[in-house]
């Protein structure tokens, strides 16, 4: 069973391959000089990536083999009338034939032709509260997308610093779902927005069970977002960005940082935290991770799992390190690469 891990960095993408999850080969960079921001894989094996440049804008590209890439015909784009600039593809999701892209400036797009052309979803992009949407430190971006596997008309989208929205009608209408989470920037007119979700993870068998790494802490909902409860027992800080769930064991993985003010690993220790009971309690994972003078963080897209048994967990840091665990996080290895700042990590099992 081989594993392919795609690491998207500020200066291109890299492909890591392993047959045993111990020894790794690296290829790349592809899209040299471009910021590779998100990766998805379609049912037929086609990879999709988002690549962005401060000079040349952002686009989606497709490849069957991670070598020969082709920019899609008509990627997500705003019209001149909308007075919005599309600067980055933040999240690509392909699930059961449905294609979604979350972008900055915040918006959600959908493709009906396997990612070749993309259409905006006005129910969210032109939400009645839109005029009050404010950016977070990473910009005004739609970065998290969830689809209910049992009912693809139920969708969730996380936008910084606006909050979580849910649609129950296939994306025609959207409703803020942030009850129980402290607001970060209260709007005078639209009190239901102004929340800063950082990442979402969903139980594969129960779409109503969603975990939320938020600016204001770690949260869980059991009713699809109608109510959120805080789950921080054992975490050194509620602040952080990535949140990953192993589909097999339901273990959760997070990378807390010391407060939004400092955004550094707590006490200079690079630790991944794991919960094996749905967020009720968290434990630090340190074996093989630097525990002294480690000040790199993990961006929201830069952690993934391969969902094998035991689960492989892959983490890329803001200083370009890649840490891998092939035993659910008990032991970690640093790969011998020093890559550019890691924006996204995506793991795929082959064969």
């Amino acid at each position, binding site marked *: 069973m081989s594993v392919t891990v795609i690491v998207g960095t500020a200066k291109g993408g890299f492909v890591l391959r392993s047959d045993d999850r111990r020894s790794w080969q690296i290829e790349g960079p592809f*899209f*040299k*000089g*471009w910021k590779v921001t998100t990766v998805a894989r379609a049912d037929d094996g086609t990879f999709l990536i988002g690549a962005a*440049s*401060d*000079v*040349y*804008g952002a*686009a989606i*590209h497709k490849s069957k083999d991670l070598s020969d*890439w082709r*920019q899609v*015909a008509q*990627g997500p*784009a*705003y*019209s*001149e009338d*909308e*007075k*919005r*600039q*599309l600067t980055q593809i933040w999240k690509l999701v392909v699930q059961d034939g449905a294609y979604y892209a979350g972008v900055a400036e915040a918006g959600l797009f959908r493709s009906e032709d396997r990612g070749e052309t993309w259409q905006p979803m006005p129910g969210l992009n032109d939400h009645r509260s839109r005029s009050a949407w404010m950016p977070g430190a990473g910009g005004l971006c739609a970065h998290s997308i969830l689809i209910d596997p049992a009912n693809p008309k139920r969708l969730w989208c996380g936008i910084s610093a606006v909050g979580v929205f849910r649609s129950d009608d296939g994306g025609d209408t959207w409703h803020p779902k942030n009850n129980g989470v402290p607001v970060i920037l209260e709007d005078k007119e639209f009190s239901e927005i102004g929340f800063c979700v950082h990442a979402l993870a969903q139980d594969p068998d129960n779409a109503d069970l969603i975990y939320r790494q938020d600016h204001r802490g770690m949260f869980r909902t059991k009713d699809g977002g109608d109510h959120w409860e805080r789950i921080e027992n054992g975490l050194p800080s509620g602040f952080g960005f990535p949140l990953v769930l192993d589909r097999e064991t339901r273990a959760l993985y997070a990378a807390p940082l010391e407060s939004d003010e400092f955004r550094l690993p707590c006490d200079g220790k690079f630790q991944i935290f794991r919960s094996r009971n749905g967020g009720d309690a968290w434990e630090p994972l340190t074996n093989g991770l630097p525990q002294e003078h480690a000040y790199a963080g993990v961006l929201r897209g830069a952690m993934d799992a391969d969902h094998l048994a035991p689960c492989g967990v892959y983490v890329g840091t803001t200083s370009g390190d890649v840490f891998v665990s092939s035993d659910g996080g008990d032991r970690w290895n640093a790969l011998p690469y020093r890559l550019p700042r890691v924006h996204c990590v995506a793991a795929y099992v082959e064969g």
Partner: protein
Amino acid sequence: MAIVEIQLPSVLAAVTDGNMQFSVEAQTLRDALDVIVRQHPRLALHFFNEEGVFRPHVLCFLNETNTRWLDDLEVPLNGGDTLRFMQAVSGG
């Protein structure tokens, strides 16, 4: 019609199937831009912003002239002219 040479930065090579240097036939600068984007439609996204004008850090030189200095794009082209695209060095 003049045959002009187009030079693209290597970072955009993937958008043009690896063609970083090629020729087009055009009468004016505007024609040339139209032809380039017609031949390589995916370039439009990278050259132009949502308002249809050059992105702030995309430079287009007609021979030695920065086309931003021109009053408009209705500039006649001559055979052998070079149209060169590059990114602005604006900060480091």
